[in-house]
């Protein structure tokens, strides 16, 4: 699975996710990636793209959870991602990338590593695989 989240210079957020699924999966099995609210979600507050074990991410409505935590609890992007990944998603089941409309960007995961890269307008950039 691959994904991208962006907040542009006007503060607009967007998310996109694409996947080939699981090797040897049952034909017709759909994971979280195409499900809005599970693998992908964006609103005027943030944008999220998730990856991992699709069934667990669907059960956790993971992408929408991050946005809802920010929207209804008024917490920061980092706090919302930490809560979603470490308190809502079953352990070892996945990760996500997210941006907020005020230009913050974060990656959170509870698996052995996650392929990710991120950058901000003020020059910060990182690429990583492991914790």
């Amino acid at each position, binding site marked *: 699975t691959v994904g991208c989240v962006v907040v542009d210079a006007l503060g607009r957020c967007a998310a996109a996710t694409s996947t080939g699924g699981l090797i040897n999966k049952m034909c017709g*099995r759909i994971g979280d990636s195409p499900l809005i609210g599970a693998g992908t979600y964006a609103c005027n507050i943030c944008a999220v793209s998730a990856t991992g074990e699709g*069934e667990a991410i669907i059960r956790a409505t993971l992408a929408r959870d991050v946005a809802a935590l920010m929207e209804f609890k008024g917490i920061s992007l980092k706090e919302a991602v930490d809560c979603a990944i470490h308190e809502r998603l079953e352990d070892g089941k996945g990760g*996500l990338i997210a941006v907020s409309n005020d230009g913050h960007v974060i*990656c959170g995961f509870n698996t052995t590593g996650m392929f990710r890269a991120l950058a901000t307008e003020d020059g910060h950039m990182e690429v990583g695989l492991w914790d």
Partner: protein
Amino acid sequence: MGGWAIAVHGGAGIDPSLPLQRQEEACQALLSALHLGISALRSASSAVDVVELVVRELELNPLFNSGCGSALTAQGTVEMDASIMDGSTRKCGAVSGLSTVKNPISLARLVMDKSPHAYLAFDGAEAFARQHGAEIVDTSFFIIEENVIRLKQAKEAKSIQFDYRLPSKGWDTCASEAEQMVQMNGVPISLYSPE
């Protein structure tokens, strides 16, 4: 804070013994996609155009499980899924079960922009792609030798193979009794692990 920001991912759950060279290749591919997005943001592209542009690039890279290099189903076929959402309008588009559309994320974008729907799947999605001029390729474009081998390994192990490894032996002892009951493809669903 303020200003633009961007993040890309290539999947969660990495085999700890993934060769360093593969790790380096993946990092380079992620950075290349990131820079593509950054230059689009610097040219004042909108967020939804940038996420589509970046995921298109990643779909063409056989290193990742999407588009070219997609995982193979139990039948050795390709079933690709994608979705996109524009936070400023809450519009969204999703597709599932594609096997001939070169960039699934661009078809999801067409569903969002050119249809009254949010989600199209399998034959309907393929027909919609042809009606709207999405680039169509032969399914063999998505199938790489490495994944044919992985599918064979997974079948021999009667399991679902993660992106980079077969589950270690004795998996049947780790799943709880209940999970053992829930099977998919003849194996406990607990075998499904991060991609």
